[in-house]
C-alpha cells in the first residue's frame, strides 16, 4: 500500500490506513511485544490470508543456544567442532541460504546471529556489507553446486573490497567423487581462484579444527580478504568422541597471534623528515585504517602537523567529511599535494588514477612487504600495521600549522559544494519540467534528511549502490564517524546486490556490532537503481522477517543505466524496461512498506515516514522514486556523467 498523493486516479492509501494494517505487523509486534502471528503490512483482501511471520520462525529464533564442548556421550560432529571454533573466534554473524545444513545449523545453534535468506549471492553480499561497516568477520553459506556458484559475484566483490568474509559451502561426499552419481557436484576451489585470500576443500575429517584455524588466521591477520572452505559430508558429518581424536586442537591464542608489524625507527624518522619538508602533505586513509582501528591515531597525526586526509576504499568515515583537514570534498586540492602518504590503501591505483600531480612524492604503509611498490613507485615503503604506524608518526612529528594549505582545502571544499548546489538547482528545474525526480535532487534531499534534519548526523549508516543515479547521489552523502558509509559497488562494481549490502547494514545496526554499537537499532539507508533492485529485491522478505530497520531508495528511470551505450539501430530495446514499474509494490508484497514518489516534496515526506517506521516499528521501506532516463542525455546537462574525481567522496574505483 503506497503512500501517494498523485497516482493517475488510482485510489490512495493514507498514513492512517497503513498504521491500521501494520500496527499489528511483525515490526510493530516487536515494538509492542505482541505475538508474531499478526498481519504484516500488506494489503489483505477479504478471505485472503495476510502476510505474517509464522510461529515456528519466532520460536526457532528464541531458542537457547548450545555450548559445543566435548564430554557428552555423543561427542561432537565435524560441523559442531567447526561451529565451536567460529564461536570462540567471535564470528559476528552468518548470512546464508539452506544447504550445507549441518554446518549452518551448528553455527546458529552455537548462538552466532544467523540470517537465512532467499538468494545465496545476495546473502553473501550481506556478509560483505556487514563486514565492511563493522570491521568484523561475517560468514556466508550456500549449498554445493548451484548455491555456491550463485555466490560468485559477491565473493569477487568482497575480494576486491578486502572484506573478511568466511565463505562456506557443502560439497557432496568424497566417496562419490568422479562417479557423477549425485546432483550438484563440482570442484569449488578452482572457481574461487583469484577472488579469495585463502581456500581449502577440507578432506581429512580430523583436521577440521586445524582448517578452522587456517581460516581465522587468514581472516584476522594482515590484509583481510575472503576465505573459502568447502565441506564434504565425510568432514561435516564425522563424529569425534573427544578432543584427542582431532589433530591440532588448541586455542586461538596458540594458532594465531595478535602481534602486528611496527615501523622501524629509521623509517619513522625518514617519514617525518619527508612530512616536514612537504608544504602540502596528504594522507590517503584507506580501509586498512578502519579495519585495524587506526582512526584515533589518524586524527592525532593529522591535527598535530596539519596534514590533509582523504579517504579511499569501500568504507568511509574513519576521518570524516566535515573535519577542516578533510580533503574528501576538496577534489581540486588533490593536485596540489606535494607528498602523499598511503595508509591502508589495500587496492593500489596506478599513477594517474588518483588526481595527484605527476611530481608528488609517495610514502606507503602496508602490513605486508610484497605489495609495496606495486602500481605506484614509492619514495618510502614501510611495512607496518596501519594503527601502529599512525601512532608512531603521531608521536614523532612536531606540532606544526599549515594555514595556507588549510585555506586551500577550504576553498576546494567550497568549490565542490557550490558545484553540487548547481547540479541540485538544475535537477530541480529538470524535475519540474518532467514530473519526475532527478537524481541530484534525490541525493540532496536524502542528505538534508540524514544530516541536516531532526536526527543526529552520525546516527544512520548508508549504503551507496546504483550506477547512473549514484554519480549524483554519492557526492551528496557523507560520513561523520567510522563505518558510516559503505560504497557497495566499490572496484568490482556489481550491479545488483545492493539490498544484500543494506541487509548486512541493517543486521549490524540491529546487533550493534563494532563502531555501530553506539547507534544500535538506528536505521540504515540505501540507494540503488531499477536495474540493481531486480537482483536483490526478494531479500525484503528476509529484511522484514528479521525486523531489520532499513530504507532503500530506488532510482527508477525505466532502463539500465548503460542506456547511453545504445547508440546504434536496433540496440535501445535491449537496454529498456517496461516503464513505470512499481518496485514499491514488490516490497509490499514481501511484507515491507512501499512508497511511490514522483516529486521532490513527496520524497521528503516519504523519507520521514520511512524513518519513523524503521526506527519505531522496525518495519522496512522501499521508496520507488520515479525518474527519467532522459536525464542521462545531453538534453539535461551534465547528463550521465557529473564530474568525478578520486580519491574522496566521488570515488568508487580504488
Amino acid at each position: 500500500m503506497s503512500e501517494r498523493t498523485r497516482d493517475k486516479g488510482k485510489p490512495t492509501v493514507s498514513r492512517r490506513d497503513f498504521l491500521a494494517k501494520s500496527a499489528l505487523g511483525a515490526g510493530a509486534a516487536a515494538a509492542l511485544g505482541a505475538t508474531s502471528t499478526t498481519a504484516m503490512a500488506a494489503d489483505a483482501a477479504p478471505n485472503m490470508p495476510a502476510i505474517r511471520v509464522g510461529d515456528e520462525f519466532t520460536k526457532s529464533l528464541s531458542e537457547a543456544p548450545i555450548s559445543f564442548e566435548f564430554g557428552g556421550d555423543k561427542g561432537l560432529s565435524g560441523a559442531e567442532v567447526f561451529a565451536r571454533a567460529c564461536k570462540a573466534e567471535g564470528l559476528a554473524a552468518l548470512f546464508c541460504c539452506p544447504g550445507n545444513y549441518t554446518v549452518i545449523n551448528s553455527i546458529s545453534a552455537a548462538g552466532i546471529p544467523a540470517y537465512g535468506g532467499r538468494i545465496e549471492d545476495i546473502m553473501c553480499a550481506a556478509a560483505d556489507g556487514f563486514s565492511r561497516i563493522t570491521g568484523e568477520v561475517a560468514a556466508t553459506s550456500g549449498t554445493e553446486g548451484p548455491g555456491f556458484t550463485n555466490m560468485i559475484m559477491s565473493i569477487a566483490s568482497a575480494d576486491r573490497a578486502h572484506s573478511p568474509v568466511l565463505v562456506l559451502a557443502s560439497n557432496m561426499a568424497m566417496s562419490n567423487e568422479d562417479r557423477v552419481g549425485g546432483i550438484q557436484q563440482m570442484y569449488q576451489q578452482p572457481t574461487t581462484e583469484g577472488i579469495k585470500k585463502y581456500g581449502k576443500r577440507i578432506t581429512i575429517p580430523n583436521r577440521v579444527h586445524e582448517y578452522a584455524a587456517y581460516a581465522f588466521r587468514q581472516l584476522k591477520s594482515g590484509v583481510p580478504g575472503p576465505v573459502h572452505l568447502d565441506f564434504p559430508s565425510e568432514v561435516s558429518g564425522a563424529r569425534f568422541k573427544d578432543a584427542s581424536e582431532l589433530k591440532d586442537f588448541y586455542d586461538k591464542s596458540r594458532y594465531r597471534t595478535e602481534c602486528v608489524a611496527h615501523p622501524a625507527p629509521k623509517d619513522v624518522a625518514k617519514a617525518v623528515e619527508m612530512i616536514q619538508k612537504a608544504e602540502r602533505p596528504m594522507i590517503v586513509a584507506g580501509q586498512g585504517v578502519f579495519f585495524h582501528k587506526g582512526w584515533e591515531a589518524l586524527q592525532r597525526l593529522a591535527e598535530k602537523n596539519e596534514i590533509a586526509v582523504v579517504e579511499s576504499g569501500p568504507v568511509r568515515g574513519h576521518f570524516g567529511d566535515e573535519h577542516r583537514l578533510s580533503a574528501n570534498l576538496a577534489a581540486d586540492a588533490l593536485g596540489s599535494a606535494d607528498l602523499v602518504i598511503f595508509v591502508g590503501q589495500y587496492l593500489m591505483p596506478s599513477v594517474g588514477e588518483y588526481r595527484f600531480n605527476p611530481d608528488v612524492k609517495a610514502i606507503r604503509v602496508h602490513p605486508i612487504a610484497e605489495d609495496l611498490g606495486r602500481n605506484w613507485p614509492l619514495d618510502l615503503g614501510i611495512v607496518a600495521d596501519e594503527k601502529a604506524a599512525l601512532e608512531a608518526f603521531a608521536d614523532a612529528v612536531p606540532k606544526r600549522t599549515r594555514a595556507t594549505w588549510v585555506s586551500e582545502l577550504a576553498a576546494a571544499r567550497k568549490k565542490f559544494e557550490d558545484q553540487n548546489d548547481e547540479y541540485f538547482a538544475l535537477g530541480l528545474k529538470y524535475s519540474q519540467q518532467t514530473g519526475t525526480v532527478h537524481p541530484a535532487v534525490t541525493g540532496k534531499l536524502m542528505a538534508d534528511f540524514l544530516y541536516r534534519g531532526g536526527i543526529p548526523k552520525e546516527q544512520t549508516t548508508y549504503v551507496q549502490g546504483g550506477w547512473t543515479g549514484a554519480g549524483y547521489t554519492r557526492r551528496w552523502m557523507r560520513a561523520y564517524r567510522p563505518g558510516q558509509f559503505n560504497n557497495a559497488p566499490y572496484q568490482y562494481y556489481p550491479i545488483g546486490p545492493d539490498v544484500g549490502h543494506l541487509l548486512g547494514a541493517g543486521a549490524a545496526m540491529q546487533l550493534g556490532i563494532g563502531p555501530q554499537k553506539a547507534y544500535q537499532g538506528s536505521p540504515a539507508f540505501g540507494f540503488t537503481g531499477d536495474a540493481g533492485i531486480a537482483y536483490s529485491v526478494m531479500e525484503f522478505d528476509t529484511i522484514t522477517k528479521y525486523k531489520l530497520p532499513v530504507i532503500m531508495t530506488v532510482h527508477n528511470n525505466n532502463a539500465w543505466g548503460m542506456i547511453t551505450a545504445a547508440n546504434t539501430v536496433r540496440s535501445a530495446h535491449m537496454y529498456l524496461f517496461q516503464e513505470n514499474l512499481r518496485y514499491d509494490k514488490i516490497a509490499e508484497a514481501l511484507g515491507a512498506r512501499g512508497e511511490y514518489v514522483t516529486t521532490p516534496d513527496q520524497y521528503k515526506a516519504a523519507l520521514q515516514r520511512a524513518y519513523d517506521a524503521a526506527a519505531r516499528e522496525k518495519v522496512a521501506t522501499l521508496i520507488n522514486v520515479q525518474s527519467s532516463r532522459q536525464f542521462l542525455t545531453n538534453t539535461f546537462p551534465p547528463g550521465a556523467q557529473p564530474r568525478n574525481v578520486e580519491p574522496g567522496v566521488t570515488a568508487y574505483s580504488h
Partner: protein
Amino acid sequence: MKRDDEIEIIRASLAHYATRGAFRSFSEVPGRPGKLEFRFLWFRDVTFRVTYEAAARTLTFVDFLPAVPARSPMDSELRRFIRGRSASSLPDHRRVDLKKVGLAVTNRRGAISLLFSLKAAHIEYGVKKSVHLAYDVLMDFLNESQYVEYNINHFNLNPEMA
C-alpha cells in the same frame, strides 16, 4: 647556460616522470642535431609525443588532442581552460607563470598541440609546468561530462565504465 646543458636538463626533467611512474615505456627517438623527440605512454596508456627545438627553446606536446575541429566549442573551451591555468587567483604551485614560460595552443587539421617557450633561466620550471598543464587538461578538462564520447573514441576510456 650552454645549449647542450639545457638539452640535458630537458632530458633529465622528462625522464624524471618515467621514474615516478607517470610516463611509461619512455624513450627518446633519435633525431637531427638540435631537436629532441620523446615518446611515452601516459593517461590510459595512450602514446604521447614531445619534441624540443633547442634553437627556439620550444617544447611541444605534438598532436596532443586529436579530432578537435578548429573553432569548435571544444577548441574554444580548451583555450579558455588553458588561459585559466595562468590566472592570478590560482596558488603559485598550480599556476603557470607566463613570465617564466610562454604558452601557445595550435590547431592544425583538427590536431591540438601545446607549445611551451622555455626561457634560459627557467628551463626546469618550464618543463615541469608543461607536464603539469598537459596533465590538468587530461585529468580535469577531459573529465567534464560532455567529453565522455571523446574519451571513448580517442583516449581508451572503456565504454563499460563510461
